[in-house]
């Protein structure tokens, strides 16, 4: 027994230096038993390889606060993530920061019950294509809760939930990312009371082809503040988010059953809210099970505002909008591609100050030189909501 204490004392005195903290944390992650809490010590810790957790349940990983317990991966030599969590259940990450990972900051895959609370994922060198793709990145997870988190500088999405089910993203901040918050091929998501600002695009809801979880469904984005998302698109070319126009508030791509309501969407210079099919990406489509259309998109009771000014001129759609509308760009932009098998494609109701345009790309873009812009239509009459959406009083 005396030896045990001696050894424990030695461990306590030897684990102070930075590289030992990496080995110590990794060892704790491997040996953790259900119910354990693993503490990330105060300080800026230099970590050079991915820290991984696999096959664990009922585990809390806790720091002393996002400003106090910081894992820095600036010198990372190994692994494509900062932290990787796989095949686990009921994992809580709380009150620490993951900084400057070479790939994604925190990726969780095949986890049932994952909580990110008070976590910052950031790249500190400003928005750059060499930053990692995703900040907080649950994929193929169920019961996801992200709250009081901050994501900064991701070259794809700051907070990205992909191919997952039963998701809440709330009370979080995302800025200086290409996409602030993105929900992709996911089912039952609530995204609310977040502040997404100064990204290229604020909040994205996407369904992409050729994925394991084929279709997203039932996505509610409400009571968020989505503003000033005018950052240049710094996504490395080749990525789907490279198509996002600088100045995008909300973008819905090929998704189904999406509800956007009671948000304040302001000063996003190009597209306040865009609703587009996968056709607009001009990518090949070989997935026979994939539905490239948007359908059942409900946009209501949002506050729109936009300063007078040009949209981005770096993208073709931006140029066309500028030619047609000058410095007063519509807030809600629809590509007009309605699924012929669905009765309700898009519905709009009581969006304060919102102007609308339907690009009708099927007819207007047959020839690039056709005088399409005159055919952009501001007529909303085809897009009335069948069911009445009540106005709630607690929006921003």
């Amino acid at each position: 027994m005396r030896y045990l204490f001696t050894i424990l004392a030695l461990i306590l005195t030897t684990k102070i230096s930075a590289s030992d903290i990496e080995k110590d944390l990794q060892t704790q992650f491997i040996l953790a038993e259900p119910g354990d809490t693993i503490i990330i010590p105060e300080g800026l810790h230099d970590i050079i390889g991915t820290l991984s957790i696999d096959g664990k349940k009922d585990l809390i990983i806790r720091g002393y606060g996002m400003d106090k317990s910081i894992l820095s991966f600036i010198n990372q030599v190994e692994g494509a993530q900062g932290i990787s969590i796989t095949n686990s259940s009921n994992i809580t990450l709380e009150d620490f920061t993951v900084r400057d990972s070479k790939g994604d900051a925190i990726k969780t895959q095949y986890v049932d019950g994952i909580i990110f609370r008070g976590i910052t994922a950031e790249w500190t060198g400003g928005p750059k294509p060499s930053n990692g793709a995703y900040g907080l990145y649950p994929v193929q997870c169920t019961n996801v809760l992200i709250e009081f988190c901050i994501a900064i500088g991701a070259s794809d999405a700051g907070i990205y939930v992909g191919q997952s089910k039963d998701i809440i993203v709330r009370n979080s901040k995302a800025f200086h990312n290409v996409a602030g918050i993105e929900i992709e091929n996911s089912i039952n998501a609530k995204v609310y009371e977040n502040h997404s600002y100064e990204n290229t695009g604020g909040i994205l809801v996407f369904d992409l082809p050729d994925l394991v979880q084929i279709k997203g469904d039932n996505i509610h984005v409400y009571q968020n503040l989505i503003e000033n998302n005018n950052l240049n698109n710094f996504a490395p070319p080749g990525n789907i988010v490279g198509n996002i126009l600088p100045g995008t508030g909300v973008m819905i791509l090929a998704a189904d059953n999406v509800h956007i309501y009671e948000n304040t969407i302001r000063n996003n210079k190009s597209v306040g809210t865009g609703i587009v099919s996968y056709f607009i990406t001009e990518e090949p489509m070989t997935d026979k099970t994939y539905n490239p259309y948007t359908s059942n998109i409900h946009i209501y009771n949002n506050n729109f505002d936009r300063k007078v000014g040009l949209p981005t001129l770096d993208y073709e759609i931006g140029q066309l909008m500028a030619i047609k509308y000058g410095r007063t760009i519509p807030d809600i932009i629809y590509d007009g591609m309605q699924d012929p098998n669905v009765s309700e494609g898009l519905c709009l109701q009581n969006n304060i100050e919102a102007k609308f345009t339907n690009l009708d790309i099927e007819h207007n873009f047959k020839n690039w030189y056709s005088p399409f812009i005159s055919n952009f239509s501001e007529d909303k009459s085809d897009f009335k909501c069948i069911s009445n959406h009540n106005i709630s009083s607690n929006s921003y």
Partner: protein
Amino acid sequence: MYKVVCKALTALLFIGFAFSSNPLKYAKPKLSDYGFFVGDLAKQQPSENVLPYEVSAKLFSDYAIKSRFVVLPKGEQILYQSNEEFIYPVGSTLIKSFHYPTDIRYPEKNIRLMETRLLINTPEGWIGYPYVWNKTQTEAFLEIAGERLDVSFINNQGNKESFNYSVPNFNQCKGCHVNQNKMKPIGTKARLLNHEYEYPEGSMNQLKKWSILDMINNLPEISTISHTPNYNDPNDGTLEERARGWIDINCAHCHRLGAPGETSGLFLNIEEKNKTRLGIYKPPVAAGRATGNLKYTISPGSPEKSIMIKRMLSKDPGIMMPELGRKLVHKEGVELVSQWIKNMKKN
């Protein structure tokens, strides 16, 4: 000092957790504790019941040379599977040791053993344990948190390669060996074993040998079993077969349905026939900066425009593929897969 403490702690843990659900309970602290080898441990002379084997297409591991052994519990048998991994009785162990000679043109001269990985089929399923060899090469010790070791050797071109070799940690073992949330072997598939091996008593087809030794049950007629070529041997299969063999063994443990790489929709197992899923004209999903400004995983006719090649060539942890177990570029693999892509017809 820290290492000594770590070892002491590891030893304590074995006692402390012997009756808990801790995964270490099936492991022994030292390689010699298992009795897999007789005589000088570093010579790896197999004891009775321990049979060496070789796979025809090998996972690239920074040019390390690997020796492999299979151990079955006495009197028990493997259940043959035609396409998947064989089903092993509980108590089986697969052993893989990694070594570097000072000059890889002379693979068995002046060797330094790095690590020995054990894949043990426990009552709770397969578990992987990494053992790291000591400097004096007398013993290998369990290191659940992995290890980083400086290595240098003379490569095939006669140049010195120096790098920091990584022994995977306990979780990283599973990172590659996982399928449908369960850990599995990767290399002991019929098509990878279906070739001759030089046993001390003479050359023989490995599957035949396993059958003669009564190690395997339900083995069909060997001529009916497929063979994945040795991708290094131009006489062992077409360019496409060898390239697909390379991609299968190096990528498909993750890039297949049920494994972590499935999120990308890129499936690289040898059975995959769908062109998009194989990467042909397939845009990336979550590659981030690893796209290297390219549009497709595979651009037929243009290896230089294919993300796959770009990622095989990279040594940046945020870009490179595979994500783990590689610090060097496999030049011969890049050449082979590039040739395959180059010969593809453009749309």
